[in-house]
């Protein structure tokens, strides 16, 4: 592990921490614009986090220690996820510790903990949210895994850095299986980040909530951590998608100059991605909860289809 490696690792984590709320702000801004409103400032998420950290935390009297620690666990899971996804450079010392499958495992771990925390206080909506979250999860995880497998079948590797290096720096080729995988990935990341059409991030009606219903009980710093974790998750998904489907511009190992060059490229790609997300959210309507398994099942099957096409066309 070189000093440059350690540096780029730290840089990646710091950048994730700082950029994640910005991405959320960007998406919100575009959603407002697409609703013909003028939007809140880009930095609004930071302001909210700052305020929440300052407030006094209010907690249900029968909340257990698990409930108090869950936000920290979830937050650090998401941070680690951002750390192993090659955003700027593929020279990440942490990445051998966890490959694509472990990435899915990380998301699953976070999901299990937030669901358990939601069930802990024992309110009606908390457990309802937990059930729905697990419902989304048990279809979204395999779909995500299959999407990642499409890439790793092409590159014969499940280590994310190896995948990106392969895709980015071998001579350009078109992989039809990635088309299917891309569609599947978009659907999965909409569901996983609690976006329309699966879940509405700013609904007030408890009966239609999924993610919100689970955190209804949280306040102040714990809520702030959860919100931050949510935007980290969005960031992680966006970066994973960009790394898989538009890997160009990610710095190769041992080249500090490319590292500097990679940042603007990433920002540009993220900006486009955020805009598209807002567009999708504006154009689609939220679906009934029991349409969600159908939606995610479709994503799962498309990803499997991608694998099959991969085997058929024998690319890579």
């Amino acid at each position: 592990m070189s000093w440059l490696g350690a540096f780029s690792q730290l840089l990646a984590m710091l950048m994730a921490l700082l950029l994640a709320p910005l991405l959320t702000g960007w998406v919100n801004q575009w959603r407002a614009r697409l609703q013909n409103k003028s939007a809140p400032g880009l930095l609004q998420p930071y302001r909210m986090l700052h305020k929440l950290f300052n407030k006094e935390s209010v907690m249900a009297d029968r909340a257990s220690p698990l409930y108090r620690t869950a936000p920290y666990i979830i937050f650090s899971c998401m941070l680690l996820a951002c750390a192993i996804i090659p955003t700027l450079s593929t020279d990440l010392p942490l990445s051998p510790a966890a490959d694509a499958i472990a990435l899915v495992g990380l998301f699953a771990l976070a999901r299990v903990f937030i669901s358990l925390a939601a069930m802990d206080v024992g309110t009606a909506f908390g457990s309802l949210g937990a059930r729905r979250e697990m419902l989304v999860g048990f279809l979204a995880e395999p779909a995500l895994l299959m999407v990642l497998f499409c890439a790793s079948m092409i590159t014969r590797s499940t280590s994310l850095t190896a995948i990106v290096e392969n895709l980015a720096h071998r001579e350009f080729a078109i992989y039809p299986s990635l088309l299917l995988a891309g569609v599947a990935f978009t659907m999965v990341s909409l569901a996983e980040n609690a976006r329309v059409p699966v879940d509405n991030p700013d609904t007030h009606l408890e009966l239609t909530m999924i993610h919100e219903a689970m955190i209804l009980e949280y306040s102040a710093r714990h809520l702030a951590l959860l919100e931050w974790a949510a935007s980290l998750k969005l960031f992680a998904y966006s970066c994973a998608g960009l790394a898989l489907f538009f890997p160009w511009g990610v710095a190769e190992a041992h080249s500090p100059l490319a590292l500097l060059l990679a940042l603007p490229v990433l920002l540009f790609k993220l900006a486009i991605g955020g805009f598209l997300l807002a567009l999708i959210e504006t154009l689609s309507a939220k679906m009934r909860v029991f349409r969600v398994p159908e939606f995610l099942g479709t994503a799962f099957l498309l990803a499997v289809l991608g694998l099959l096409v991969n085997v058929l066309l024998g690319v890579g």
Partner: protein
Amino acid sequence: MTPFLHPTTWVHLDWVLVVVVAWLLIGVLGVAALRRFRFVAVVLFPMGAFFSVLLLAVSLSAVFSAPETAVLPLGLPQLPFHLRLDSLSAFFLVLIGGVSAGVSTFAAGYFRQGEGTPPGLICLEYHVFLASIALVVMADDAYLFMVVWETMALSSFFLVVANHRIPEIRQAGYVYMLVAHIGALGILLCFGLLQANTGDYTFANMRQQHLTPFWGSVAFVLAVFGFGAKAGILPLHAWLPEAHPAAPSPFSALMSGVMLKIALYGILRVSFDLLQEHIWWWGVLLMGLGLVTALFGVVFSTVQVEMKRLLAYSSIENIGLICTGFGLSLLFLAYDMKALSALALTAAMYHMLAHAFFKSLLFCSTGAVMHATGERSLGKLGGLMRYMPWVAWPTLIGVLACAGLPPFGGFIAEWLLLQSFLFTTGVPSSFLDMLVPVMAALIALIAALSGYTMVKYFGVIFLGQPREENLAHAHDAGPWERLGMVWLVLGCVILGLMPSQVIALIDPTTNLLAGAGLAHTLADSGWLLVPVSIERASYAPAIFLLGVLASMGLAFLLVRKLYHGRLRRVPPWDCGFPWQTVRMQDTAEGFGQPIRQIFEPFFRMKRQLPGAFDAQPSYKVTVEDPLWYALYLPVARLVERVSRIVGLLQQGRIAVYLMYSFVTLIVVLLVVKR
């Protein structure tokens, strides 16, 4: 024949025999102190646990040493018992020792006065069971194997029906006995084929025989049938969800954690070791059976409303996954891809170890919960985390491991299995090539569903509010129970954090069975788990855990430093509806409902909905196993009809019976004369 008289020259096998004898002696002592249950609990069971640890230590070193054989001058004349301790047996002895140590310790605190069978007798059955499984994995001829196999079946049967006062439990034990015997029949026939008319039933001889593909396949199918019946592979799973809840919890733990693995040992021994040639469709058959079993098990476990049934179905799922690993490895072996075969086999055996530990841990926790609350239905539990933390936190570890989440054992097993699937291209058959991704997808789906199940299990039992008043007086686990559970937790953690070391333990076995191992790739990668090569895939649970913990601590410190830790406790936010009751939490049925809706064709459901004008509207839904009605009951009816016909012979008059034997005599004489 090893010299028993000079302990200095003893080899591992002798030590294992010492443990076996010790267990039998403990059993006898138990009978001697039939009703003195305090003595049985705090003296005999801990002694058993001590010898389990001894067994663990011995077999850990035996894994790496050369095979040892012994011939005991017991059994029938001219038919002495052959014993053999190779790395495969040693691996399973490690499993037995490790798990039984924890479970026996737990059992020391578990058994109470006045439950059906007297404690002394339970102690006897328990330790006879342990001794018999230890001998099963060491048996080196069909006779000894069948003898100890049946001993295992019988002792476990008696343990299942420990509370024989309750009719349902007797029923369950009966079903279990029945399936066990049908299975044993299959095994017997299989051995009959394997010895190929040489009349020599030692395994050594069987290894020499080269069966034709047809008879080899028949033997393989018989073995899968026979051992599968004991392991709970579809469609012979029906006894499992009946017997596990019936048995006392420590023994459910042993059954699920150890006995099922012994059945899988049988499959391994026959299909990898005794049968020399392998045919590709054996692997496909095993994989198909495994996947179907796993999917069936996990879908059913999500909709269960009774703790131990839920765990039992989840065991079916895990057995299915392990069989899938066997099948894949067998397929590769048939195509002579040794490295990949070793990888798949390693994944399966890792899964066996992991499942043995976390599942027995979970069964122990259900035992503790049932003692504390007297309740086994999820619908009447809840909120126990506040009253019994010593049970809740270990269970949380077990749950995470069972859900296949990093950084625990279950995840590593699934990780390896997925790896071996992922790099399966270039199997000569195009159809298989197409099937492989689909199978990988199924495995991913099953793993995710098991996460769903485990969240339901932990959330409904330990979190939320108590659904009944009396739960508030639930007492925490006693010292022995805590000790046992902590031991099992340690097992889970070690399996999760030290994969390279554990795989080094599995390596001799894969070398024995698949002719290859992962050790050489692992040796130079230290804490990093690298099955094939660093470019392809790597995973380091220790670093993983460290990363999570470090960022957790950092986040905590920063929040406290930069801001504050003020906290105010208030009543929970009830969405402005002050009349919320505990009954408004999600019930077990409610939590399983989405799965019930999605996988509707799997179930045989009876739903009773309230009408518009009912005075007391009631909602009831029962989910049943369609196979029970489609397969078991018809067979039962057939048997009944046949036996009624046979029953016609019975007249109840001596003269008639004498006439039967007379006629038989005449017929025999005629036959002999010709």
